[in-house]
């Protein structure tokens, strides 16, 4: 065996191990859903069943938690997406020191452990506004760092924006609000959608922050964690399986759309460059032929 072949083998083994490490646990968890065993496992295999989906379906608290999660996620989208957008618009126009400082402040929640965000939110709103844990506080706490994700997405898209488009619209008589509504916002629309999608996902799966600010409300993620600790049955696996399936479907759609967008941008750029290179078939200037009216 040559050194080259040995290295290839090593790479293959590593890839198999790496992706095995990533996916085998998920596979085992999914498989346990269909085992009749009361405790979720694949060993021993006691028989195939779909009954755990029925058990899950009849779990009222699960449905309630799902409802709470959806309400929280909707709230977070409503707060974090506009906030992230406003922050990106502001940063895009600032320069130098003020920008660096503000930027650092804005991304700091992403570098702060989730539990601390939960704790500080809880203390602050309880002390100053007498607001205790619950759905509203959960939305506030989650938004404080999810807005930073949204801001990063908007900032990335704004880098590709041509600000002379705004100037052109303004020059044609549009008010600033009209410029924003007709020019800037349509351009940012893809980022609005991905920010909403990311915000939903982040909110839906959040645990560390939510734990401190949820009060007596239970989100689906909190519910799953509590089920694992007490009252674990393969119904939790059934729920996990459904969530994973939905997540994968969402992730694939998102990636496909994102790549299509990227490809389109690339194709357009190539087209423009081709035209620059070939020039035009310069038609006879029509206005030059027409006699002046004035």
């Amino acid at each position, binding site marked *: 065996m040559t050194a080259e072949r040995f290295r290839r083998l090593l790479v293959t083994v590593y890839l198999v191990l790496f992706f095995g490490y990533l996916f085998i646990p998920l596979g085992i968890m999914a498989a346990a859903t269909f085992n009749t065993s009361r405790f979720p496992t694949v060993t021993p295999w006691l028989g195939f069943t779909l009954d755990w989906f029925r058990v899950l379906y009849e779990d009222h608290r699960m449905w309630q938690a799902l409802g709470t999660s959806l309400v929280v996620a909707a709230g977070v989208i409503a707060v974090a997406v506009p906030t992230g957008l406003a922050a990106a618009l502001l940063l895009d126009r600032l320069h130098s020191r003020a920008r660096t400082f503000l930027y650092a402040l804005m991304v700091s929640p992403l570098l702060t452990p989730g539990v601390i965000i939960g704790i500080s939110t809880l203390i602050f709103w309880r002390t100053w506004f007498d607001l205790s844990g619950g759905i509203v506080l959960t939305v506030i706490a989650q938004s404080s760092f999810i807005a930073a994700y949204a801001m990063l997405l908007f900032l990335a898209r704004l880098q590709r924006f041509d600000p002379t488009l705004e100037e052109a619209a303004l*020059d*044609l*008589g549009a008010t600033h609000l009209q410029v924003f509504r*007709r020019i800037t916002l349509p351009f940012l629309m893809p980022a609005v959608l991905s920010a909403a999608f990311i915000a939903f996902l982040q909110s839906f799966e959040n645990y560390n922050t939510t734990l401190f600010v949820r009060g007596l409300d239970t989100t689906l993620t909190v519910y799953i964690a509590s089920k694992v600790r007490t009252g674990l049955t393969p119904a939790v696996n059934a729920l996990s399986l459904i969530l994973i399936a939905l997540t994968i479907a969402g992730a694939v759609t998102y990636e496909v759309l994102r790549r299509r967008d990227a490809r389109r941008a690339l194709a357009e750029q190539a087209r423009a460059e081709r035209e620059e290179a070939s020039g035009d078939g310069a038609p006879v200037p029509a*206005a030059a032929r027409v006699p*002046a009216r004035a």
Partner: protein
Amino acid sequence: MSQDVALDHVTMRFGSVTAVRDVSLTIAAGEFFSFLGPSGCGKTTILRMISGFMEPSDGRIRIGGRDMRGIGPNKRPTALIFQNLALFPLMTVADNIAFGLEVRGVAAADRRRRVRELLELVALPEVADKKVTELSGGQRQRIAIARALAVEPAVLLLDEPLSALDLKLRQHMRAELRAIQRRTGVTFVYITHDQGEALTMSDRIGVMSRGVLEQVGDGQTVYDDPATAFVASFVGEANRFPGTVLDAADGRAAVDTPFGRLLGRNPRGLKAGDRAILFVRPERLAVAPDGTADNRVEARVSHRDFEGAFVNAFLTGAGDRRIVVQMPHLGSEPAFVPGAAATLTFRPADAVVLPPDGEA
């Protein structure tokens, strides 16, 4: 409809840099006026001040007699055609053209009618429903013009709009722009660093250098009677003969140059002892075998470029100073054999003596 633009001691400073220095000028209603200058000379700053994207640090801008201070770009009777055109990529051609009308609340039917008219004007009646990304460079150019004209501006401002086009198309578009300007009668303020564009299209040209408006005049004036050394060298080709004024009288000055004493017009009234540059256009130089003329320049041919209608000859003399001669190719012009000696002459009326830049 069209209005005049008056700049009254306009100055623009960015921090410690003065981009535009004390420019005063009136552009007449219906005029095609070009600001000509190299990049960084302040011409784009002037355009952005007229359009309202910047406020001058000092001085006043009036359009149609109305002071523009504090009036935003969306409230001014101007329309700007951007260097990159800035067509809205997410809208159709028709929506682009109608945008200015839409934001003014013009009814949809009127907008459609106006879009049709404008597409006729720019000779692209069939592209209304296309995306702007589907258009060629020249088509985009015309759509940008149509979009700007849709709001019926009193003044149309153009920021080097032809610079992205190739040479052939650029020449077509020059004629077309001029024709559109004549038909609409709108005041055009055009920015360019291309003297060919400025000379062919404009009624008048303002030549700018380092924030200063050096000279204003029609193309022929700027070319034949440059007011400063900068204008003489920036607009068209010119041979430079630097030296010191020996004597000046009757509107003429004699300059002591490395080639000897040369005589030219003295529009700036330079006196004996002043430093000066004598400028002669390449096409005003003649080869004189008899050597009778006042101004004689001895030089040696280094090479010759044949351009079809013209012949350009490059000579050196008085050390290593370059001289360019341009002659029409009539078959009777000298052969300009490399290495051969030649005596060049010119009439004093064809030369102009100006102070060097910065010594005005």
